[in-house]
């Protein structure tokens, strides 16, 4: 008896705040992009709190990309540029160039920035016309 009363009251205690929270929620639940480990990698890159080898980060991003593809999630803005940066750090300039060009195709807003980065990309192989 007492147990039932407790659970009923607890139920209300949970239900009422949940209703209140629903009223405050601003965002629809669905997401535009897949995120995978990208935010963790951003944290590692910007704060340098933990050092994770660029090769390891590249592997993580490749795994995430495969996961995005298999679940139909879109790659977020800037994601390919970050991967390009990791490729540049490890001397893979051609892979970096491919990612920067892909970012321009996916997000035309990035064109000027990607061209700036491309112009800094060491000396990429000249593509013969």
């Amino acid at each position: 008896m007492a147990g039932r009363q407790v659970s009923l009251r607890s139920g209300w205690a949970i239900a009422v705040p949940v209703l209140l929270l629903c009223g405050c929620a601003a965002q629809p639940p669905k997401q535009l992009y897949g995120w995978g480990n990208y935010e963790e990698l951003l944290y590692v890159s910007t704060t340098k709190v933990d050092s994770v080898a660029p090769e390891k980060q590249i592997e993580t991003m490749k795994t995430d990309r495969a996961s995005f593809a298999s679940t139909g999630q879109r790659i977020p803005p800037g994601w390919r540029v970050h991967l390009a940066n990791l490729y540049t750090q490890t001397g893979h300039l051609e892979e970096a160039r491919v990612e920067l060009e892909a970012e321009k195709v996916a997000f035309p807003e990035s064109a000027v920035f990607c061209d700036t980065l491309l112009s800094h990309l060491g000396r990429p192989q000249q593509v013969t016309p």
Partner: protein
Amino acid sequence: MNLSKKAWLGLACLSVSLTGCVTPPPPKDYAAFRASAPRSILVLPPKNETVSVEGPYSYLSTVSRPLSELGYYVFPVHEVDELLKANGVMDPAEMHQIPLAKLREVTGADAVLYPTLKEYGSKYVVLDSVTTVSVAATLVDARNGEVIWTNAARLQLSSNGNNQGGLLAQMVGALVSQIINSKSDPAHRISQQVDVVLFETPGQGLLPGPYFGASAPLR
């Protein structure tokens, strides 16, 4: 019975903490924002008004996701920071002084977000810790320099929220949360909630960007 009392107490506390949602300030004037209609946002590293060393860049790493999910092209924060540093601008406060025309020339950004970190970190008292993150941000149209949006958000969280009573339990609670906190910065996690308040509060946050809805590129 004891349990239900606690449940009601929890409800009361939660209701108090939610009153900010119930009575919002009057909606902002979005006329300039609508006229500007930026497609892309360049987020500069936050100007630091705290004593925290890692705070600004920890906070910086949290903004890409909410702004992208709001439908904007968000320039990759780390690469922007590296580009500016490679050009000799080392400090976020200096970065905030770079002429818009120059930022636009190298990035093509429609708008620039200038965040300021006002509070960041945890204060430890004997049996508890209180973590505070406070951010102010201004969005400027990079084409004409007009301020199109400004907002601020501050959140505070006590680690002492789930104690079962009794001094021993409280001491264990304080110890445990300090160990966890040192491993994963609680201010970083609160930063993500600050972003929700800062960018997504109806009538105060940002208007949705061009990719909001179903039109994000598929590849």
